[in-house]
């Protein structure tokens, strides 16, 4: 029997699960997008697509998924290759700021239509 002395850690399960759930959401969005994207492409069709409430809702979920998914992935990359603690922290903070900023930008694009 394994007797764990260290308790309280999540052993990365939450992140692992979040990575999978967001992946499924993004796959779902891709399938929906392939069905509904305007053919032939035009400005009117493109704009009309993103002007719909459900499409904004879905795209918002996509943006949130990308934010979480990319954060976990990039954090793993920094953890694997950047051994210097201070530099790694700086890169992780920069990644979060960048992703949150991008999410805000995406929201602005969608709700400006």
């Amino acid at each position, binding site marked *: 029997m394994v007797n764990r002395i260290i308790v309280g850690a999540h052993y990365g399960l939450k992140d692992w699960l979040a990575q999978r759930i967001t*992946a499924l959401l993004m796959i779902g969005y891709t399938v929906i997008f392939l069905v509904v994207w305007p053919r032939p492409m035009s*400005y009117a069709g*493109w704009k009309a697509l993103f002007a719909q409430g459900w499409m904004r809702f879905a795209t918002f979920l996509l943006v949130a998924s990308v934010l979480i998914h*990319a954060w976990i*992935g*990039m954090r793993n*990359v920094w953890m694997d290759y950047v051994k210097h603690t201070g530099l790694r922290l700086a890169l992780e903070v920069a990644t979060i700021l960048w992703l949150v900023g*991008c999410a805000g930008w995406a929201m602005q*694009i969608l709700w400006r*239509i």
Partner: protein
Amino acid sequence: MPDLTAKKKRPLWYNLSPLNLPLPGLVSILHRVSGVVLFLGLIAFLYLLDLSLASESGYAQAAGLLRAPIAKLLVIASIWALLHHMCAGIRHLFLDVDIGTSLRTARRSAFAVFIASLALTASIAVRIW
């Protein structure tokens, strides 16, 4: 306290040569590489989305940007990154629920991921070129 430094040297034989990398390993590292590529490409994607939804002229401008050969190459590279990342990710989801974990199947599915993403990229590439 035992003297650990006095311990005799253990033989190390980790062959990490890339030439020795099995196909599932190649799919795995490319999954990571494509993920980083997509992260870096996020800004270009958002810029184009912003431009294309801003106005009629913005849409034309975005379409014009994408007509340049270099832009097409970048788009094709991004599509490959997305498709490889997605296919390898779907394979991962199956492995997570214990489907296809035998060595034989895992090698086959890795091969399938590789071929599927390249074939899909090629079919899209000829259409947008």
